[in-house]
C-alpha cells in the first residue's frame, strides 16, 4: 500500500515532469542560512560561518541527484528520453528507417502467416472440448481410415479404450427447403457423434444414439452455424422446420455452435445427419465396402494411444477371423483427429514445418541485414559516441540508447508485419479455391499468432541491436576524436560476412526450389493425362438428389446426353459417374483373374479404378482407344457384361497384351466380364501417381445416379455453362447442377503443388530482396568505412576500375560464393520437391542459369552505388 502510493506519486511526477527544483533550492538556501546564523552566534567570521555551513550540508549536486531519483522514476524518464532521441535520430535518416522497418515487417509478416498455418493445422487442431484426447483411427493396410458400418459397430461395442467411438462421412446432397434446390455438403454421422465429441448445441438439440432404431429412423438434421446464418437467416425458430434432402423429408432439430466446423480440418459441412436415416439398409449392412470416412473418439482417462491401438488391433484380428471373406488384416493405428490420420496429416505437417523453418531463416536473414545496417550506422556515428563517452556518458547508457533505437524499429516493423499478416490471413480464410467444396482453411489468427509475432519482433530487435555492441564497447574516444573514424585492417572474415554469405545461400536455395516448382507446375499442365481436358466442360449432377431411382436413372441420363448434344457448337457429349481427375470421389473394386475360384481378399489380382461411362465418353474425353471398341447403347442389363480396360489392367490382370480382347475376368460378386476394348493409361486420382489399373463399365449395365456430363465444345465456357444449365432445367427443374471446366476441376489436383509453389516463390522473393539489401548494405558500409582511403587513392590517380575492385571486390566474392553454395543445396532440395510437384526436375537449364541473370542485374546497381561517394 505504502510502496504503491509512492510508486504512483513518482509515476505521476515523471509523467507531469513536475519541477520541484525551486522548492528544493529554497529549502537548501534556508537550511544553509540558518546554519550560518548558528555558526555566527558561535563566534565565527561571516565568511568562515558560511563555509562551515556548506561543509556540513555536504555535496549539494549529489544530494540533488538523489532527490530527483527519489521524486520520479529515473528508469522510465531515461527510457522516454532515449525514445525521444531515438525517434529524432530515425527521422533524420528516413531511408534507413524505411528500409529497416519494411525489411522487418515483411519478415515478421511472413512468420505470422506461416505460424498461423502451423497454429491452425498442428497446434490447435479441432474446436471441441478436450481435443488432446481425441483420436482418429487408421487401419494400417489398404484403405487408411475408412471403415464399413458393421465393422464400426463392432469396434464401437467391443473396445475398452475409448469413451465412445463415432463415425462421420462427407457426402454431397441436394437440399430443398421449399424454394430453389441447392447442393450442400453434409456429414452423415453416427447417432452418438455429438455426444462422443462432448458438444452442446447452440440452438435446439442434437440427436443421440437413443434416437437410432435401425435404418430410416431418426430423420433429423443439425445445421452448422454458418449454414444456419447464411441459408436460414439466423432464424431462431428453425427447429422443427422440415427440409428435403434428396427429396426425402428431414426435420431440423438444432444448430451446432459457431466454433465447431466439423471434425475434418479441410472440409466443413453445412449440416449433420444421422447415418442410419441417410443410407440404404444395404449400405449399412455391407461389411465389405469400407466407405465411411473416419472413426474418432476420446480415449478413456489413463489409457495411452499405444494401449488403445493394441486393443483395437485385437478387435481387428477378431473381425478378420470371423469374416475372412470381407475383412483383410486390420492393424489399427491412432492419429490426432482433424487431418485424417497420416494421409493428409503427414504431408501437411511436413510442409508447414518446412515452411516455418524457411520463414525462421528469412527472419534470421532479416536480422543479419538489419544488424549490419545498425553496425554501419554505429560506425557512422562513432564520432557522436566518442563525444558522448568523452563527456562522461557510461557505455551502458550509450548501448541502451542504441537498443532503444533497435527496439523502436522492431516495434514499428513488427506492428506493420502483424497488421499486414492479419489482413492477408483474413483474405485467405475467406478464400474458397474450390467452389464445389466447402473448404475450411483453419488460418484465423488468434492470440497465439499475435503473441508469437510480437515476441519474434522483440527478439529480432534485441538480436540486430546486439550486433554493434562490441563496436561501442571498444570505442576509444581519444583516438576517434583525434583522427576521425577508425579502420582496423587485418581481420580476414568477419561474422557479418559469414552471415551474409549464409543468407545468400539460403535465398539461393529458396529461389532455386521455387523456380523448379514453377517450371514443374507449368509442365504438368501440359502432360499426358490419358484424356484431353482442354475445351471440355463438366456438368455434375446427381440424379439421386432429384429423386430418380432404378430404371428411371439410365433413361434420364440418355435424355440428358441427347438434349446437350443439340446445343450448337457442342462436338461430343459423354457421361460418366465420375470422370478421371474430375474432382469427385472415385471408386475402386477388386478384380480377379478368370481362373480364380475363391474370391477372398488374398486372391485379388488388382484393385481397379472403376468408372461407369456412356458409349460416347471415350470420344468426348478423347481417350485414345488402342484396341477393340467402345460401348454401344445395346449393352444393357440383358446383354453379357463387358468392360473397357486400360493398358495397366491388361498387363496386371490379363497378363498378355496380344490376345487380351475377348478375354474374361471376375469381380468380387463372381460375375465374369469380357474385355471389349483397351484404352491408353491415364491419370485417375492424382497427377503424380504411378500407372493405375482402371476399368470402364457401360452405364446401362452398372447404373450410377451420379452423372457427370462431359461436354466437348469450342464455345466460351461461361456461355456454354449457361446453355447446359438451361437444357437441364428444361428436362427437370429440380435437378441441382454444378458446371465447371475440366481444367478447373484439375485445379483441385494441382492445388497442393500450386500452394507449395506460391509459398516457396513468395519466400524466395523475400529471401532475394533481403539478400540484395544485405549485399547493398554491406557494400555501402565498406565504402563508407574506406571513403577517405578511396578518395586519396582516387586523387593519386587510381583508375575507376581499380577503385571499384577495391571497394566491391569483397561483396562480389561473397555473392559468388553464397550463390554457388545455395545453388548446390537448392538442387539437392529440389529432389524432395519432385515428390510434391509433378515433373519438377532440378536439372532444368533455365533453373541453372538464374544466378548469372541475377548477377547481371545487380552489377550496374553496384557501380552506381559506388560512384556516389567517389564524386563526393
Amino acid at each position, binding site marked *: 500500500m*505504502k510502496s504503491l502510493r*509512492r510508486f504512483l506519486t513518482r509515476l505521476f511526477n515523471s509523467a507531469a515532469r513536475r519541477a520541484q527544483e525551486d522548492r528544493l533550492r*529554497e529549502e*537548501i538556501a*534556508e537550511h544553509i542560512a540558518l546554519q550560518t546564523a548558528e555558526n555566527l552566534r558561535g563566534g565565527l567570521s561571516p565568511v568562515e560561518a558560511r563555509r562551515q555551513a556548506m*561543509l556540513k*550540508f*555536504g555535496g549539494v549536486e549529489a*544530494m540533488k541527484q*538523489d532527490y530527483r531519483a527519489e521524486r520520479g522514476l529515473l528508469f522510465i524518464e531515461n527510457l522516454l528520453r532515449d525514445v525521444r532521441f531515438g525517434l529524432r535520430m530515425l527521422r533524420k535518416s528516413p531511408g534507413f528507417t524505411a528500409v529497416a522497418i519494411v525489411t522487418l515487417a515483411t519478415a515478421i509478416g511472413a512468420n505470422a502467416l506461416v505460424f498461423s498455418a502451423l497454429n491452425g493445422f498442428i497446434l490447435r487442431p479441432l474446436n471441441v472440448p478436450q481435443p488432446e484426447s481425441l483420436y482418429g483411427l487408421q487401419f494400417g493396410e489398404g484403405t487408411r481410415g475408412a471403415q464399413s458400418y458393421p465393422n464400426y459397430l463392432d469396434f464401437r461395442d467391443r473396445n475398452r479404450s475409448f469413451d465412445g467411438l463415432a463415425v462421420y462421412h462427407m457426402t454431397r446432397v441436394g437440399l430443398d427447403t421449399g424454394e430453389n434446390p441447392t447442393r450442400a455438403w453434409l456429414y452423415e454421422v453416427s447417432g452418438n457423434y455429438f455426444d462422443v465429441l462432448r458438444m452442446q448445441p447452440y440452438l435446439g438439440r442434437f440427436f443421440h444414439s437413443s434416437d437410432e432404431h435401425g435404418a430410416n429412423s431418426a430423420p433429423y438434421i443439425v445445421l452448422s452455424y454458418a449454414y444456419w446464418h447464411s441459408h436460414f437467416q439466423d432464424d431462431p425458430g428453425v427447429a422443427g422446420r422440415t427440409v428435403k434432402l434428396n427429396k426425402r423429408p428431414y426435420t431440423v432439430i438444432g444448430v451446432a455452435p459457431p466454433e465447431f466446423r466439423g471434425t475434418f480440418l479441410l472440409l466443413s459441412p453445412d449440416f449433420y445427419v444421422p447415418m442410419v436415416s441417410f443410407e440404404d439398409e444395404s449400405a449399412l449392412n455391407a461389411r465389405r465396402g469400407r466407405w465411411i470416412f473416419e472413426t474418432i473418439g476420446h480415449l478413456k482417462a489413463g489409457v495411452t494411444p499405444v494401449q488403445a491401438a493394441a486393443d483395437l488391433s485385437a478387435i481387428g484380428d477378431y473381425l478378420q477371423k470371423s469374416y475372412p471373406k470381407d475383412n483383410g488384416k486390420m492393424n489399427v493405428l491412432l492419429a490426432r483427429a482433424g487431418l485424417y490420420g497420416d494421409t493428409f496429416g503427414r504431408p501437411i505437417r511436413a510442409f508447414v514445418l518446412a515452411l516455418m523453418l524457411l520463414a525462421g531463416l528469412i527472419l534470421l536473414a532479416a536480422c543479419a541485414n538489419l544488424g549490419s545496417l545498425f553496425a554501419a550506422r554505429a560506425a557512422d556515428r562513432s564520432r557522436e559516441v566518442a563525444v558522448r563517452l568523452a563527456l562522461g556518458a557510461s557505455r551502458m547508457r550509450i548501448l541502451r540508447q542504441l537498443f532503444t533505437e533497435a527496439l523502436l524499429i522492431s516495434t514499428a516493423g513488427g506492428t506493420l508485419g502483424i497488421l499486414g499478416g492479419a489482413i492477408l490471413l483474413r483474405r485467405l480464410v475467406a478464400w474458397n479455391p474450390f467452389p464445389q467444396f466447402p473448404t475450411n482453411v483453419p488460418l484465423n489468427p488468434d492470440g497465439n499468432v499475435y503473441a508469437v509475432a510480437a515476441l519474434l519482433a522483440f527478439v529480432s530487435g534485441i538480436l540486430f541491436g546486439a550486433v554493434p555492441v562490441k563496436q561501442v564497447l571498444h570505442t576509444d574516444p581519444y583516438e576517434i576524436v583525434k583522427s576521425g573514424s577508425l579502420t582496423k585492417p587485418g581481420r580476414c572474415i568477419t561474422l557479418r560476412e559469414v552471415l551474409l554469405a549464409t543468407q545468400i545461400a539460403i535465398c539461393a536455395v529458396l529461389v532455386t526450389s521455387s523456380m523448379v516448382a514453377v517450371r514443374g507446375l507449368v509442365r504438368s499442365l501440359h502432360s499426358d493425362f490419358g484424356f484431353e481436358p482442354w475445351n471440355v466442360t463438366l456438368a455434375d449432377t446427381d440424379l439421386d438428389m432429384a429423386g430418380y431411382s432404378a430404371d428411371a436413372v439410365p433413361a434420364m441420363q440418355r435424355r440428358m446426353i441427347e438434349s446437350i448434344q443439340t446445343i450448337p457448337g457442342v462436338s461430343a457429349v459423354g457421361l460418366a459417374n465420375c470422370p478421371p481427375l474430375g474432382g469427385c470421389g472415385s471408386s475402386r473394386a477388386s478384380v480377379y483373374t478368370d481362373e480364380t475360384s475363391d474370391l477372398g481378399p488374398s486372391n485379388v489380382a488388382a484393385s481397379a479404378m472403376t468408372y461407369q461411362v456412356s458409349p460416347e465418353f471415350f470420344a468426348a474425353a478423347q481417350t485414345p482407344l488402342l484396341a477393340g471398341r467402345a460401348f454401344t447403347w445395346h449393352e444393357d442389363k440383358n446383354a453379357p457384361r463387358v468392360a473397357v480396360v486400360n493398358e495397366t489392367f491388361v498387363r496386371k490382370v490379363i497378363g498378355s497384351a496380344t490376345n487380351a480382347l475377348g478375354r474374361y475376368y471376375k469381380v468380387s460378386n463372381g460375375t465374369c466380364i469380357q474385355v471389349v476394348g483397351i484404352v491408353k493409361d491415364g491419370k485417375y486420382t492424382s497427377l503424380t501417381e504411378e500407372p493405375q489399373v482402371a476399368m470402364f463399365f457401360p452405364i446401362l449395365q452398372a447404373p450410377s445416379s451420379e452423372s457427370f456430363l462431359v461436354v466437348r465444345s469450342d464455345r466460351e465456357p461461361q456461355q456454354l455453362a449457361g446453355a447446359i444449365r438451361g437444357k437441364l432445367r428444361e428436362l427437370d427443374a429440380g435437378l441441382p447442377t454444378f458446371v465447371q471446366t475440366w481444367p478447373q476441376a484439375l485445379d483441385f489436383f494441382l492445388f497442393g503443388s500450386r500452394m507449395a509453389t506460391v509459398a516457396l516463390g513468395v519466400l524466395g522473393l523475400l529471401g532475394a530482396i533481403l539478400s540484395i539489401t544485405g549485399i547493398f548494405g554491406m557494400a555501402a558500409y565498406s565504402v563508407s568505412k574506406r571513403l577517405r582511403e578511396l578518395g586519396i587513392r582516387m586523387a593519386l590517380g587510381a583508375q575507376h576500375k581499380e577503385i571499384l575492385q577495391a571497394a566491391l571486390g569483397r561483396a562480389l566474392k561473397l555473392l559468388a560464393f553464397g550463390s554457388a553454395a545455395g545453388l548446390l543445396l537448392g538442387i539437392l532440395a529440389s529432389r524432395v520437391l519432385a515428390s510434391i510437384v509433378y515433373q519438377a526436375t532440378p536439372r532444368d537449364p533455365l533453373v541453372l542459369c538464374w544466378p548469372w541473370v541475377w548477377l547481371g542485374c545487380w552489377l550496374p546497381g553496384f557501380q552506381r552505388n559506388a560512384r556516389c561517394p567517389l564524386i563526393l
Partner: protein
Amino acid sequence: MKQKTDVLQGTLALMVLKTLDVLGPLHGYGLARRIEQISGDLLAVNQGTLYPVLLKLEQEGAIASEWGASENNRRARFYRLTRDGRKQLQVETQDWEQTAAIIGRFFAAKAEDLS
C-alpha cells in the same frame, strides 16, 4: 573523535518520524539539528542527505509539508507527521525494539548458554 558513519536511510527515516512525533512540526534545518543533538553528532556532516529521505516519506504519505515562517522570519518548509506516519512509527518502533532485544540477548549470551 569517533568515526561519523553514514546513517542508513531507513534508520534516518525512523529518526525523522520519531523527532516529528515528539517535537511537532519542524523545518529541515530544525530536524537536522535535533537528530544531530540526540544521536550525538551522527548527522554532523552531510545534512543534505536528509532531504531525499524527507521527500520519500512525504511521497509515501507518512509526513506532510507546507510553507511557514522560520525563526528569522524567512519562508521555510515545515514538516509534520500524518496519521499514517504515526501508525508507521508505531509499527517500526515495535519492530526495532524486537530486533534490538533479540540482538541484545545474543550479545548477553555466554558460552555456557549456547552449549
